[in-house]
């Protein structure tokens, strides 16, 4: 029984650590990708500086969601998906800009 309780506690702590990592690293990656996307789509305003200023306003809701979502797997999943989509769009836009 105590062994089970111990593993449960370890599992809980790993879940928390995973969420923190997801919010910190994954959330940061998504925010950066979205900020870059904003800067590429609207270079005059918000542009590079503006999208950096807005990054914080984007990051906070992402972190709040990461700690509220039902399971850690969902958090990682959605973060990776959206980061991939945003980065892909950025990469395509950068290629376009370079060619032109």
């Amino acid at each position, binding site marked *: 029984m105590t062994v089970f309780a111990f593993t449960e506690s370890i599992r809980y702590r790993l879940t928390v650590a995973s969420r923190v990592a997801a919010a910190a690293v994954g959330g940061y990656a998504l925010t950066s990708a979205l*900020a*870059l996307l904003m800067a590429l789509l609207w270079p005059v305003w918000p542009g590079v500086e503006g999208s950096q*200023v807005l990054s914080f306003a984007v990051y906070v809701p992402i972190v709040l969601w990461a700690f509220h979502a039902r399971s850690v797997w969902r958090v990682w999943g959605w973060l990776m998906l959206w980061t991939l989509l945003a980065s892909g769009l950025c990469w395509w836009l950068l290629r376009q800009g370079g060619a032109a």
Partner: protein
Amino acid sequence: MKKGFRQSMVWLHTWAGLVSGWVLFLVFLTGSATYFKDEITRWMQPERPLHSQVQSLPSTTEMAVQGLEFLRSHADGEAYWVIRLPNDGSRAGNNGSRGYPTDLRVWWNQGLQNATLDPITGVEKLPVLTRSTEGGELFRGLHWQLHYIDTQAGMYIVGVCSLIALLALITGVVAHKKIFADFFTFRLRKGPRSWLDGHNVVGVMALPFFVMMLYTGLAERQTYLFPVPAKLSPDARKPVAMPLPEASKPIAYADIPLRDILSKAEQKIGAGEIGEIAFHRSGVYTPWAKARSVPIIAVSRSWGTQLPFTYLDSNLQYNALTGEFIGGSEFGQDPRVRTKWWMVGLHRAWFAGAGLRWLLFISGLLGCVMIATGLVLWSVKRREKHIQRNAVPFGLRLVEWLNVGTLVGLPVGVAAYFWANRLLPVSMADRADWEVHCLFFTWGWLLLYAALRPIQRAWPEMLWLATAAFGLIPVLNALTTNKHLGATLAHGDWVLAGVDLTMLVLAAVFGFAAWKVQRKQANERRDTSVGKSATSTEVPA
């Protein structure tokens, strides 16, 4: 992760607050002090004369001509001169002179050499020899870069903690169910409930200020915290073309139509508004101004007279040969960077006069109280759970130790910094560094003391120590200098008197806290001895 949104936010609020709390306490404390950094610096240099009635200054043009005469006789070959005109100290002023009249100063040799001139005669004045001290600038450095560690690392630590603090603030608001009703709720003597009410009231009182300060503070460092857009977008990757025309020989002083240019500038920005006159006698090549190959006279305002308050704002450039107006500086004007500079100006309150700065200072200290009540609330709540048990979890003991050691220890350290300023020998080597060491040594010793004393004893003892540390500063001032309250109040030097008086107010605050804690503990002891439960905090009327 928990059942409801509010519960998840409470969990996040607690942990974000715990992780960033002590660092943020330091940041809010030093940030509040930074609003008065120039005043503190002046207090820490008691050799400087008292603020006396400002003698009526001659006109802008006459003073500029005095400066020019001096530069011509001392630095004729130089291509770059600057003349900074004096002001009466009511403005933020150029470089550390708020609340104190500034002098007429000139710079040459790429700004490395300067001289202070008498505004009427143009003769060089010798600067007053003051004791070596960092003054209020220490607080500014501590506020965003910490100390003793690499400045970049310190900046990142403060930046990350501020981001976590922003999270704590937002989750705090989200978790607060009855935010309007609770504003009028303050239940005294109910243990953790009272701490929660205190935390809520203080948190809500200056909430817009906290959100603004955290956000604008982060915005200042945005390029470091979120570098991706700047690094990867095509704008940023294009190299900036810097044309470098041939530097021509500096034009002669006599050829510059100075009076003409100054009168035109005053027409544009208003009489008496000119703060600084720069002479680029062979052209301008600085990164922030458009490169120009003609000799330029650049006229600008005093810092702090107009948002976005970049010190090159409304920098008017005139052709030095013909006196023709060429254009203004572009620094801070580009709509893309303007937002950021507005935020920097807001955060540093460049626009604020004395009254508004006092308000911001008090709001900053309210931030410290909000953080302190939050941290104490956490430990009080956990304590209640363990009141019967002998084995107290390590986490709780750690938090209680850090609480008393930092929430009281750091302010006492700041008081020690002021004590050191008055007590360290003036001729001591590295004196400025040792004043700062005294701050940290005191804090360190108090952390050690807090680790060795039972927490119940440590709180009142350290609070009384803080009371004495702050309250005796005016006395120490009177014993060691001639700029004590007796002299400063008599001469109406409100800046210096203000520092002493603020120490007394802080002492009163700590004294009140010490008295309350002592009374509460005495009541608890009395209740325990007559057989009542030790957790009861009800005091008979």
